């Protein structure tokens, strides 16, 4: 059966979103059509507004609706430490730990085996912050996979030129986890990084 063109178009567009398959896209499209008109317009307006207003912070790259994000605006934060993360969602995770330093968000999906993997990185912004002289430590908190390791190496190379200390979070066992079920790589690194008790 052929659907109305506009409905088909809506389903196709919803399907482009992550985790949305054809059936979910169809269910969402039909739900949107059943919504009161005002709600549907609000949803469309909210998408457009967020798309127009949310931009990377000019200092750290985190997505925000002002020129500088509220973390960069906060004078109480420790400007001597910069935590480098891949995405804005990583900032939210690290904020929950009580970290009070600054951030630098790469906003780039890096895959080492892709063509031009290292292109498109805004490293001038990063270098400018290091050149300012206030930074004493850079924490490379990228994903602990091959891509994250290689990107960390790349950024460590850039950071070393400024004589700034480079660190990264420890690898270890999750709280509440079970040693029996821990994978070999994590367990090995956890043992290597053991501390005095």
């Amino acid at each position, binding site marked *: 059966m052929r659907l109305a063109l506009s409905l088909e178009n809506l389903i196709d567009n919803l399907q482009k979103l992550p*985790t949305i398959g054809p059936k979910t896209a169809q269910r969402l499209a039909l739900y949107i059509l059943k919504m009161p008109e005002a709600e549907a317009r609000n949803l469309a307006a909210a998408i457009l507004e967020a798309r127009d207003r949310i931009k990377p912070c000019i200092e750290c790259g985190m997505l925000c609706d002002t020129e500088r994000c509220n973390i960069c605006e906060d004078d109480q934060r420790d400007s001597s430490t910069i935590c480098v993360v891949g995405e804005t969602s990583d900032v939210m995770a690290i904020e929950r730990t009580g970290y009070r330093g600054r951030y630098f968000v790469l906003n780039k999906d890096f895959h080492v085996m892709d063509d*031009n993997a290292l292109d498109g990185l805004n490293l001038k912004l990063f270098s400018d912050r290091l050149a300012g002289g206030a930074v004493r430590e850079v924490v490379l908190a990228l994903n602990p996979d*091959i891509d994250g*390791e*290689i990107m960390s190496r*790349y950024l460590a190379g850039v950071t070393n030129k400024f004589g700034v200390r480079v660190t990264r979070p420890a690898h270890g066992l999750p709280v509440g986890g079970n040693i029996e*079920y821990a*994978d070999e*790589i994590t367990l090995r690194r956890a043992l290597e990084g053991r501390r005095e008790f």
Partner: protein
Amino acid sequence: MNYRSRAIILKTIDYRDADKLVTLFSEKHGKVRAVARGVKKPASSLRVCLQPFCHSNLYLSGGKELENVTQGKLIDFFPNIREDIDLTLQVLYLMELLDKSLMDHMALPSLYSVTLTVLEYLNTHGNNPLAIRYFEANLLKYLGYQPLLERCVNCGTQSGKLQSFNLVRGGVICPECSKTLTSDFDFSGEALSILRLISSRDVNTMHRIKASQAALKNLEFFLEKNLEYHLERRFNMKKTIRTLKYL
């Protein structure tokens, strides 16, 4: 079709929210593309055995388009390679070579065995450019592009200076034949001897071979050019390695 096979993970890419698309080089079925569902979740037991260049025992089941990785057990994750980022980059280059040269579902058990031996060698002995060159030379051999180095590929003579290489003919050419055939590459005497040596030896003897930096560069350039010519592909990892090297 459901089967179990040992496999080396060539690459993984994100697929949907928690899944990954895995390209692997299996012992029994050659290069296979499969979906690993839920593998990005922290509790996934498959996560560790699907890291690039891990050697794992995997259970695969046939899907509509792609196969599915249903279970897996890690055999070796080559910890010493992972500790050395330069070596990791070199090994990722080997994985890219395999990914770009192998056809799906074409079993090559001998090449599989060579790959495994090279990974084990690098894990034990650390970074050795000759082991990488050994792999490249063997890859050319198993793909059917082994260069002819002992005699002139055109007239068959074994005498004279055989240091020019013709890519189209796939072998060295004598000074006489190089008047009519293009010389795409000029070997140094040392590089040619090393290439002959690594083509006939086992990888475990690579650390006993002494080579100058100039000969290693000559050899690297030759094998890269040869692979690019035959596979008609460029290798992204080479570019990344060079960028990182000159930082």
